[in-house]
């Protein structure tokens, strides 16, 4: 396997509520299928998603088949199978790992274990399958197991880990914000990560979901909050700015959530929780949550980019479910501008929330290593896997 030959990968992620399968070629996403439990569940009127395992078992094979079909490839043509080992819910992770192992064994394919957070952190590197890349000749060559013409792929975003790490873009700051995670991750090189700050209690998306549900906005409420916040006054309700005295870059959303909860109770008791109050509260709470993140980001950038003994960040990559929020992107860009830093975001909303395409992208960069160590039949779930080096 030469360094420049990008792998064709089937990726699977069943780390929590969503059953996801994808096919990637290098950094290009050929298919990205997500069977979201939230979609399945809403018609029943429940506000909660179903616990994943049973649904994963029912959805995983159809999801894999759909991804292969959309990409127009067969299992035999794959170079590898990638699967999320953690972090996540153990019984749910198990379902994806079992199927990945089964397929890897049946088709004699290397299995690439992937950390879900690494996948979110690298998700802005994913590229859509656009005509400008003219990927089809390469795909055809792959399918027919032909020798790859290197000239053909030189222009494509298909770099592997080694060539990528040679670029002068590191260190990179990855910001992963989702329902389960809120982390500032320093990427020294692909494969070398350091968590600089993280939530000490609730995740950003979780706080938005919980307060949104309190306001009667359903579940998951974070995307709804973004929509209704546009019609609300973000300065109407004042929330505290948490953890300003702590010297670290950690985040805390529990206190903001408690403040919102008490405010909602108070407004309810006074019969003041009318439609405008809900809109204003959603806007104010969302603003408070993001302001906390940008405050800590600014602090972190002052430390990293202005300290003489530290290498300044050259790029900032955003990932995770909350990264689809345009208000957040706007607020982040405003901070980053003063550091001449550009914010890179996933190319579509489907790459932000839990999905398998990002797992395929991460696997693309691990491809060379895992071949050397292809003891692929003994993978075990790692529900509390940290990417910290």
């Amino acid at each position, binding site marked *: 396997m030469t360094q420049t030959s990008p792998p064709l990968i089937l990726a699977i992620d069943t*780390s*929590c509520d969503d059953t996801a399968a994808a096919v990637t070629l290098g950094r290009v996403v050929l298919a990205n299928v997500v069977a979201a439990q939230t979609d399945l569940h809403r018609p029943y009127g*429940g*506000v*909660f*998603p*179903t*616990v*994943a*395992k*049973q649904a994963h078992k029912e959805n995983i094979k159809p999801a894999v088949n759909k991804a292969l079909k959309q990409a127009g490839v067969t299992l035999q043509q794959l170079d590898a199978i990638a699967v999320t080992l953690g*972090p*996540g*819910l*153990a*019984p749910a992770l198990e379902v994806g790992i079992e199927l990945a192992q089964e397929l890897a064994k049946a088709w004699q394919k290397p299995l690439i274990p992937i950390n879900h957070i690494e996948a979110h952190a690298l998700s802005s590197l994913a590229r859509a399958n656009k005509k400008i890349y003219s990927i089809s000749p390469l795909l055809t060559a792959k399918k027919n197991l032909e020798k790859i013409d290197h000239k053909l792929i030189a222009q494509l975003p298909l770099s592997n880990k080694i060539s990528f790490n040679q670029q002068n873009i590191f260190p990179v700051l990855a910001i992963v914000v*989702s*329902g*389960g*995670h809120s982390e500032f991750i320093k990427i020294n090189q692909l494969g070398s990560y350091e968590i600089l700050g*993280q*939530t*000490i*209690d*609730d*995740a950003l*998306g*979780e706080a938005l*979901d*919980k307060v949104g549900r*309190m306001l009667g906005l359903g*579940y998951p409420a974070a995307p709804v909050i973004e929509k209704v916040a546009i019609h609300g006054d973000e300065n109407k309700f004042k929330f505290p700015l948490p953890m300003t005295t702590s010297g670290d870059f950690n985040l805390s959303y*529990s*206190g903001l*959530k*408690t*403040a919102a*909860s*008490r405010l909602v109770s108070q407004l309810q008791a006074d019969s003041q929780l009318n439609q405008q109050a809900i809109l204003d509260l959603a806007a104010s709470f969302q603003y408070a949550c993001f302001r906390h993140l940008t405050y800590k980001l600014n602090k972190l950038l002052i430390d990293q980019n202005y300290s003489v003994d530290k290498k300044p960040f050259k790029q900032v990559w955003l990932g995770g479910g909350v990264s689809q929020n345009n208000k957040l992107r706007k607020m982040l860009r405003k901070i980053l501008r003063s550091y001449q830093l550009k914010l890179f975001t996933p190319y579509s909303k489907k790459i932000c929330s839990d999905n398998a395409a990002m797992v395929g992208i991460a696997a693309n960069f691990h491809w060379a290593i895992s071949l050397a160590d292809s003891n692929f039949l003994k993978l075990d779930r790692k*529900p*509390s896997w*940290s990417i910290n080096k």
Partner: protein
Amino acid sequence: MKIIKTADHSKTTILKTAIKVLTAGGLVIYPTETVYGAGVDATNQTAVKKLLAYKSRREGKPLSIAVASTIMAQKYAQLNSQALSLHQKFLPGPYTIISKAENNLADGVASEFGTIGIRIPDHELVTDLTTALNKPITATSANISGKKRPYTIQDIFSNLSTKQRGLIDLVIDAGELPPNEPSTVIDTTLSTPLTIRGNMLSHKNNLALISCSDQETIDIAGKFLLKYWDKIKNRGLVIGLNGELGAGKTMFAKGIGQFLKIPQLITSPTYTYIKEYSYNRHNIEGIFYHIDTWKIDQAENAQLLEIEGLIKPKNIVAIEWWTQIEKFLPEIKPQLIIDIQILSDNQRQLTFIEKP
């Protein structure tokens, strides 16, 4: 090892012998109004090490000290007004009053929470001994950890190894002591006094504590887990945690994590339902499962978390939003249910419902 029977010797002889042994860093078995105690000079590090070796497997269980008076107690602990009032009302007597320790005791005497239990035994010999020595002596019961309460010297000796027997320097044998319960332990370092052992002041099955800060919630969690430590080792522990959003359920879980010496941050498990942490506390290894059922509203979903399989000796399973899920999981029976209520911005009421 020397054994002197109180019936055969004068008080002066006994005191002189005991003080000589204690001053030299020796270990003395002595009678109290409750059970036989194991005493060493609590300010002498070598002597305390010897005592800890004698007691074996302490695993964080604190020692207590015997002093002659409240004035003497104040040299070694910070007695708040509540402690002072309890001292006044109940001491000398079969009570251990826990206060914040000063740092003039040997390492291993104060608890991991920085507190110390103080006894003023209602027993002339002990009062005379601590007065004459002018130092506190350890007041832990003379049995080795986990063995029968010692009312006779025979009770102690029948469970000792030769090595442990060799650590004893002096036994003051007062014959068989009346079958009094061990001392009642009252912790005054919390916003609400907590009775840890004994029934004189106990709160039956429900106990309400006020916590005035996150740190206090963390401390309360640790103290409760210490109380349940033997049960955790033998059977495992299931805790149901209730309270509205923002009440501090995860803060309590952080306290569990701190007690178990888990190095990772304990964060909300809402998104993935379950977070698991391996722990090693005093060489006991197990897993802490932190479960959040906020997203669950159906029996079949609750079943899919496979909680029953997590309950094993040494494992701790803490389930947030227990009232929401209990109807779906009749087979799960928490030994401890904690309801957390918000009283004000910083104040929480923690109600503990113990189910034996």
